[in-house]
Structures are given as structure tokens and as C-alpha cells.
């Protein structure tokens, strides 16, 4: 597959969960295209649906949740046949996708490794299963992966158990396992949240290297806009089960358009001025058990327009790569100045 070819396409996706008879509308009509070789960051608060959204690519939704409408198409298969992921039902079909086409790295490296098996065996399992290698060849390949993810003394480390590794090293092992599956798309769900700042920076560096070396498409999920500026080509901002703004990272950081993106950027302590209040978003995210009318962010948005409470905004194109769901972009909308922190970033982008 060539770089920048369409690899994953989501259209009007809706996911609902049944919780003791009550219906939770977790994903509310998402459209998204992912291109081969890019790093796409999905940013949102807890409860915005970012994990549920990406889990649906791998058939990992909890049994009380299902895709109620919309499609997910995958174009990266070896035989160039598109796969409609949203219609896969059997576990057997999913096994062809999981790992081999799409692999996932979870947030907490403490819980995603098996404490009873050596690191080497856990990576080798993926090598044997997905690359058909056996015995010495598989072992050799495993050592190579260990070296690739920056683990010193791979021969010694091969025989060690997860508890003998630090948090950062464990996350490296998890990355090695995911990469050993030979996937096209690597979904990283908050891969650095449980780690120290210095280790976090190192893991992000490693992901960048891995992307080039193994020709990966990376979808990076995070709640921290600060983390992804370094690595992301494009950023999608999620709120209440929808992508409210998407663009290249320069566009999202230096020219954000959605009030929610403004709020997220301004509430970062990095943007704070000592002795002054940090910008903060009032209230809490909406309850997804009840139907949302208009713009989901409107009740928390001091700049909301009247129409925001009545009608859900469509996407407005800012450029060919940048679009946002906010009525502020309608030509009839009043001109509203973004907050000070955002204006600072705009200045920097010029």
C-alpha cells in the first residue's frame, strides 16, 4: 500500500450501549478517513467515546454495545479486497483482522502483559502466530524486535518476566508485541498516560521510529493535547461521541475554530499565567443517555449562539484538510474572538 492512500473509512457511525434497559448513545454519527502512513491523534476527555470508537475497528466492543448504523471499511488487506468491519460478526473473521491488520496498545503496561510468561515468549507468540516462523528463526526475530524497541541486552531480557521491567520498559515490550503482529494500523490507547514525563517523551520517540521502520499507520488516543503536538500529522478532537474538529496539527494548534478546541487549549497549565486563573470549562460533559439537541458543547460554552441549542451544526470546511462542526463558521454567524491563549498560539503560527 502506498503512503497517503485511504486505509480506513468510517461513515456516519453510531454505536449504542444497552445499560440495564437504558440506551447510551456513545458514538453519534462519526465520519473519518484515515490515510496510510499518517499519525492521527484522537483527543478527548474521558467519556467522549474515543476508546469505544477505536475499539469498534477491532470488534472489541463490550457485548452490550453494538454498531447500530453506519459503516467502517478497511482497505489495507494484502489481497486489496476491502473489508467491511462494521458487518463482521464471527470471531473467526475478526481473527484475520486483529493483530494482522490492526493491532492495539493499551494504556496500562502493568495489566496488558501476562505476569506468568517471560517477555520473550510473549513476543515470540505473536511472531509465530502472525509471521509463521518457528523455533530458532522465531527466536531470532523476537530478539530483533527487542533490540528495535530499545531494550538493552535482549538475550538476558528475553528470559525475564514482566515484573522485572520498569513501566517504560514494559510499554516498550507491549509495543514490540504489537509490531510483531505485522499490522498495518497501530492503535495506541493513551500509551503514555501511566508513565513519567521523561519516559513519555521517549515512548513517543519510539513510536515515531517504529512508524517509519515498519510502515505503520498510527492512531493515537489521548486526553492531553500537549502530548500529541510532537508526533501527530493530524488531530481529531472528540466531544460527546462526535468529532467536532479535525485538521493537520498545525491547523488545530495554530488556527483552531471550534470553541471546545479553544477551551481545551486554553485550559492547559502550560498556557497559564502565574497568579491568574486558568481558563476552565464550566460544568460536565453531557449525559449521553438522553438525546442531545443542537451542539453538544453549547451548555458549557459561554460563547454559544441561540442556534447552538436548537440545531446540530454540520461540518464547515476551513481548508481542504481542516473542518469543524460549529455554527461560528457559518457566514451569518457573528465574529467572535478566540480566548487569549489561542490568540497567542495563532501569533506563534504566523
Amino acid at each position: 500500500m502506498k503512503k497517503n492512500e485511504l486505509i480506513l473509512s468510517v461513515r456516519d457511525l453510531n454505536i449504542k450501549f444497552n445499560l440495564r434497559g437504558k440506551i447510551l448513545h456513545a458514538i453519534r454519527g462519526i465520519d473519518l478517513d484515515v490515510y496510510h502512513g499518517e499519525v492521527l491523534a484522537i483527543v478527548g476527555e474521558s467519556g467522549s467515546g474515543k476508546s469505544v470508537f477505536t475499539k469498534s475497528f477491532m470488534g472489541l466492543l463490550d457485548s452490550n454495545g453494538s454498531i447500530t448504523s453506519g459503516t467502517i471499511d478497511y482497505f489495507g488487506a494484502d489481497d486489496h479486497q476491502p473489508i467491511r468491519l462494521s458487518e463482521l460478526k464471527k470471531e473467526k473473521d475478526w481473527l484475520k483482522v486483529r493483530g494482522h491488520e490492526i493491532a492495539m496498545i493499551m494504556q496500562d503496561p502493568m495489566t496488558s502483559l501476562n505476569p506468568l510468561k517471560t517477555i520473550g515468549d510473549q513476543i515470540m507468540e505473536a511472531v509465530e502466530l502472525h509471521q509463521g516462523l518457528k523455533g530458532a528463526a522465531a527466536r531470532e526475530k523476537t530478539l530483533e524486535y527487542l533490540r528495535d524497541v530499545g531494550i538493552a541486552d535482549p538475550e538476558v531480557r528475553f528470559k525475564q518476566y514482566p515484573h522485572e521491567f520498569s513501566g517504560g520498559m514494559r510499554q516498550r515490550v507491549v509495543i514490540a508485541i504489537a509490531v510483531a503482529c505485522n499490522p498495518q494500523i497501530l492503535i495506541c490507547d493513551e500509551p503514555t498516560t501511566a508513565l513519567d514525563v521523561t519516559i513519555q517523551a521517549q515512548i513517543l520517540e519510539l513510536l515515531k521510529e517504529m512508524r517509519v521502520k515498519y510502515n505503520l499507520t498510527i492512531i493515537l488516543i489521548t486526553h492531553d493535547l500537549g502530548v500529541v503536538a510532537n508526533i501527530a500529522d493530524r488531530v481529531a478532537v472528540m466531544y460527546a461521541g462526535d468529532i467536532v474538529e479535525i485538521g493537520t496539527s498545525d491547523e488545530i494548534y495554530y488556527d483552531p475554530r471550534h470553541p471546545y478546541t479553544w477551551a481545551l487549549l486554553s485550559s492547559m497549565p502550560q498556557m497559564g499565567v502565574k497568579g491568574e486563573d486558568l481558563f476552565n470549562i464550566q460544568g460536565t460533559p453531557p449525559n449521553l443517555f438522553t438525546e442531545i439537541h443542537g451542539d453538544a458543547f453549547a451548555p458549557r460554552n459561554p460563547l454559544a449562539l441561540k442556534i447552538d441549542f436548537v440545531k446540530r451544526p454540520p461540518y464547515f470546511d476551513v481548508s481542504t484538510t481542516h473542518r469543524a462542526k460549529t455554527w461560528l463558521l457559518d457566514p451569518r454567524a457573528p465574529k467572535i474572538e478566540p480566548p487569549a491563549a489561542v490568540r497567542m498560539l495563532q501569533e506563534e503560527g504566523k
Partner: protein
Amino acid sequence: MADEREVLVEVKNLEVTYGSGRKAYKAVKNANFTIYKGETFGLVGESGSGKTTIGRAIMRILPTSGGEVFYKGQKINGKISHALDKQVIKEIQMIFQDPQSSLNERAKVSYIVGEGLMNVRPDLSAAERDEKVRQALLDVGLLPEFASRFPHEFSGGQRQRIGIARALIVEPEFIIADEPISALDMSIRAQVLNLLRHLQKERGITYLFIAHDLSVMRYISDRIAVIHKGDIVELADAEELVTHAIHPYTRSLLSAIPMPSPRRERQKKLLVYDPSMHDYSTEAPQWRELRPRHWVLCSASEAEDWCRES
């Protein structure tokens, strides 16, 4: 300047050891610092550096194995008198990192918040206590009706507010906040930081703020101490420390701060700290004031090199 301020807490040669005999592990070695009344003193380090241990030792949750902790001039570690014990319990409170695990799931909010009062203010009647709980909840921006609910009914940010209300109700003078925002979402973080700052302004509370994130520290703290593997390696005013970091460990921490700016991020150089760079075999490191009110743990030759570099 700062030296004219009133000293609230003084930590001298503090040492905390886990385990004993062959298994003994010194988590904190020889920590020294003073906290002035009304300031926010930040303690930054990575996991395993001993920052939480220091907080807990001052709080007296952990026994100290050496050194002294003074509060308002009185020694509070080791054996202390009953009256002083009472005073310290009332005046020093703690806010914990994880609001999911620091609240009693089986108790109502009214009990969680009011429990401390039963201990330090036994003279209050139940009705007076309820009134105080109401007020404490209002102070942290929660509704008084929440008093009759259970912790699981609240979001992470609300639970952290309950934890703050619990600490505030006994009217402490000194609060140890151990990573109070790292378990929270971005937008909620700002709310909690603002709340802590307002409380400080209104009541003159002194904070020891423990965190691993220098960007948060720079915003909230007046002075910052950087701790690495049980040693405090650098101590200065917040802006001074961030703009003129001297110790290589501090510099590596600074280089790792994620910035919300793709261009600056692309130019960023990650510094990795390697403790083996120090050669302390011939000369033990000492505290040196390399810039005004800016202390660094280093040997004489290092002091010279680092000063030249920066």
C-alpha cells in the same frame, strides 16, 4: 527577601527507610528544605524518586529513620506530646492523588467530609457538624445536597473536590497535596488548580505540592525542589528554576515537557539524564548556591562546568 518570611515547616537531614536489616532501602536521603508561611512549595520528581515518601513522612503516616521535621518551630517527627499531636492533626492535612481510591465507598459524603471534625472538634453537635459540612462543600463548589450521597455517584473531578473539602473542614494551615490533579481530565484539572489557588488566597493556606509535571509546577508553585532517587538535586524560585535550570536532571525534565505547539515540538531536543555522569568518588556533592537563591547539589568541578554551560 524570602528569608524574612515566617518559616512554617522545616525539614532537616530527613531520611526515610523502608524495611530493615538487609532489606533496608533508603527512599529519602538527607532531604533539607524550608517552607514559608503562605507559599506553595513544589516537589517534583519521577515515580520512585521519594517525593510522596517525603510528603507522607511530614504527614507522619511514615516513620522517619533520621533527621528532623519542624512545624512552627516544634519537632513533630518521632515521639511527641499529646497536645502537639492534636495540634498537628488539626493543622496539617493531605489531599491524595487518586480520588477513586481515597474515599470510603461505603460512607456517605457527609461522613467522609465530617469525620475529621469528630476528632478535632468533639464539642460540636451533630447539627453544627452538618452545617460545617454544608459550608465545606459549598467552598469547593459542590452542592450541599451532595452530603447525603455516596462517592460512586460522582465524577473524578467531583470526587477530588470531596477530598479537598475533607481536608479543609478542620481549617488546616498546611496542606500536603500529593499529585492532586494527575488522575483528572484536562478541563477538570484547570478547575481544581483554580480552586486550590483561590483557597490559598482566601485563607492563607500553605501548600506542599507534589507532582511529576514541571509545567503544572511552574504555574502553581512559588518555589520548586527537584528530587531524584531520594536526593533533592536543585531548589529555586519557580521561574528561576524553569528558565535557568542547572542540574542535568532538571534540564532533562524540562526538555520532556510537552508543548502545545507543533513547531516548537519539532525543534525540541530531548535530553536524557544519565546519573553515571557524576564522578563523586573523589568528591562528595554538596549544596551550593550557584545563583542567587538557587541551590544545586553538585561537586566543585561540576559547579564550575555547569555554570559555564548555562
